[in-house]
């Protein structure tokens, strides 16, 4: 019992390259409510490093980042928790 909510949505960005990997994840996150979780399937290497980092920079939380060989060779799974509305919405 971890208390972690199960993913409300799941996307597979393995076919894509930077920056579309993060764009797809960001759009999927924007469709969730704060606190909901998105599962993202990622290729190893650049996407595994950059997508979780970009998510954190954007105010979301990385709950899990783990190898997911059962999904395919070299696949990683990230669980991203949707953060609050970005502060940039409040403009001067």
């Amino acid at each position: 019992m971890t208390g972690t909510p199960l993913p409300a949505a799941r996307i597979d960005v393995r076919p894509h390259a930077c920056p579309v990997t993060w764009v797809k994840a960001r759009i999927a996150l924007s469709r969730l409510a704060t606190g909901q979780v998105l599962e993202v399937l990622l290729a190893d290497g650049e996407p595994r490093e950059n997508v979780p980092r970009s998510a954190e920079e954007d105010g979301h939380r990385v709950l899990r980042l783990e190898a997911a060989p059962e999904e395919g060779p070299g696949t990683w799974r990230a669980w991203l928790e949707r953060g609050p509305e970005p502060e940039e919405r409040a403009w001067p």
Partner: protein
Amino acid sequence: MALTEAEVARYARQLILPGMGEASQEAFRSARVRVTGGGLAAAPAVYYLAAAGIGTLWIDEPDEVSPGSGAGFALGPADLGRPRGAALAAFARAANALVTADVFRPGSRPTAVLVCGSSSDVSRAIADEARLLRTPHVVADVDGQGGAVTTVPVDAPCYACAARPGLGAAPTQEGGATVGALAAMELLLLLSGASSEPVARRIEVFRGTPLVRATSRQPGCACAGPAAAGLAP
């Protein structure tokens, strides 16, 4: 309608901007923007609006392309003598195959206007027309190597209220590109909905440095509406 794969790939770099995303891109796609006024800022402004994915561009530039008409950003010697509106529309379509760009036809109702007047009198007349139709507009004035961009959301202080005399220097190509791109930026920010309260402001660029001012209404200006003009019951 959700964004297509082609749109996600093309607009990737603006889709990940703070405050922007799927909703702002859809707003761009459904916008219909009229670009008009005959000034040097029009060609660069058309480029940045088309490239960002403004779905419909109507270019209202009846004059012919001439060497001094700001052709150098978008149009070359091969375009000299062509009607400027049609030439810029073709350029916009070549820049972004996903958008529709055509010459403006009278009676069409834009959702926003980009005013690139060849003089402040020209800009003033077009801006007033947009204000009376309650259409948000952005005005680009080229002045030497720089100029000014005035953003006028609906019900904001009008262009005439915001305008201030500049240097009155002869417009340059680089001034046109500077102010045209800045005007496109202001219009895109306005249309993106990223700001809950649309920003009425004027950015002046002289000697390479942008300076911003909030715009305010001149006492008695017609843009305050009937109440301020003393016509209210």
